[in-house]
């Protein structure tokens, strides 16, 4: 071992550029994203679940509403937006919780890694998984299950991607408040279910009790689902669609920022 140490010491004589921590470094962000994806690759079952479950649910839904294709269109389009949000929420909250409890987060934050790099790395990694997931689900729904969409499939994908980012952001944020995996999964019903009930999936938001409608007005999933429904009904981008997209994107960024604030270099 001492011999290898000698060669090591020689290698050390190369002057290394001393890069300081900036808010965002592209190289460190992509290295983090690549690492997260590599971890995922060692876990093929999770990948399979992430990609196939939404497809299976859509098939199921298609035949549940076998006699009313209109209902399938409505719920199917909404679900295309909801799946990425839920999957990415779950995956991110568990992944970052593990990072916190395994000590790797402490180690990373003692290194020249910006908090923004870590968060952007996660968003990039899970965002790319979300693109594949949404592409599969959207393709299946449009071409094999006969989902009847007036607008462009690309816009469906765009909303799905933003929803995935929102899910990643929310997962990252709540993981700061979970001390164990048990708590982390319980955040899913706590954070996601109310939004699911109020987002207009089960009944139009305008038909709800005014108080609930007001609450649904400030929940981001309402706009995610509304965006999907805009694409479902209109050939081109409506102003409502643009508003929906901006709100979802804005919320995702806001929550990502909040998530960054929960990462502390110094812990008790």
């Amino acid at each position, binding site marked *: *071992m*001492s011999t*290898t*140490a*000698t*060669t*090591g*010491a020689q*290698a*050390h004589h*190369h002057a*290394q*550029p*001393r*890069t*300081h*921590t900036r808010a965002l*470094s592209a*190289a*460190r962000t992509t*290295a*983090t994203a*690549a*690492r997260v994806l*590599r*971890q995922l690759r*060692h*876990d093929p079952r999770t990948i399979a679940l992430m990609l196939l479950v939404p497809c299976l649910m859509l098939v199921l839904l298609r035949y549940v509403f076998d006699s009313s294709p209109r209902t399938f269109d409505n719920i199917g389009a909404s679900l295309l937006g909801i799946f990425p949000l839920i999957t990415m929420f779950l995956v991110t909250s568990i992944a970052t919780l593990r990072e916190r409890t*395994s*000590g*790797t987060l*402490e*180690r*990373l*934050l*003692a*290194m*020249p*890694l910006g908090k923004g790099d870590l968060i952007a790395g996660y968003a990039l990694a899970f965002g790319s998984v979300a693109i594949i997931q949404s592409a599969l689900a959207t393709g299946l729904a449009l071409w094999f299950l006969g989902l009847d969409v007036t607008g462009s499939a690309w816009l469906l994908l765009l909303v799905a991607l933003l929803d995935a980012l929102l899910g990643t952001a929310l997962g990252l944020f709540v993981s700061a408040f979970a001390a164990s995996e048990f708590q982390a999964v319980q955040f899913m019903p706590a954070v996601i279910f109310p939004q699911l009930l109020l987002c207009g999936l089960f009944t139009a938001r305008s038909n709800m009790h005014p108080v609930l409608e007001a609450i649904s007005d400030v929940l981001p999933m309402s706009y995610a689902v509304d965006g999907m429904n805009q694409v479902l009904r209109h050939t081109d981008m409506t102003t409502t669609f643009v508003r929906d997209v901006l709100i979802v994107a804005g919320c995702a960024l806001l929550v990502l920022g909040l998530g960054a604030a929960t990462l*502390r*270099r*110094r*812990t*008790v």
Partner: protein
Amino acid sequence: MHAAGLTVVRGPRTVLRGLGFTVPRGQITGLLGPSGCGKSTLMRAIVGTQAKVSGTLDVLGRPAGHPTLRTRVGYVTQSPSVYDDLTVRQNLDYFAAILDPGRAAAGRRRDDVTRAIADVDLTSHTDALAGNLSGGQRGRVSLAVALLGTPELLVLDEPTVGLDPVLRRDLWNLFHHLAATRGATLLVSSHVMDEAERCHRLLLMREGEILADDTPDALRTRTGADTVEAAFLHLVDEAVAAGRTKESAR
């Protein structure tokens, strides 16, 4: 490294009580003391991951936790902090990319990673998942991460726990090599008193306070003991006795 009046509060307890000491550069300083005395807490304060630190703590001429120290200080946590679902090489590749990012540095990083894996004697397990390694092997992956780059200060929290005598000897040779050829400063905590003999200097701690800050030889001479272990026990007994007389004087 220099500390004065260093105090750390964790939860309801004051874990470090006004520590003062100096760790000389280019030497190996052993940090010894019973379980729960605050060794890990002190190390976390030094690398800047511990909250609620008061007093003075300067590391390599900067206040502890200063951003410029993040590439200059290597740190090994007490429990191995590596990704279990990555291979040994993938783990090191990632941490190397954080320390020395960019595509231009890829070649240098590859050599550095290969060298660090060899330093901890894991070359035969390069492509094994960290989660499938034995406890001691995972600890060595964690140690290898701290050996990446050219840290001027290495803070190692019980790096040799659970390792066999041969490997422990080799790692101590490596530590001495780093101190001698690179002028690296090492702070190594340990429970095992025979490792104390291998350090240039020792910091003996008990209940959040420093009992002694000296060379192993000086400690033995001062206490008239044969081994550092005996010297340590002697100092603890002294401290306990002093505490009792203080109490009864009240």
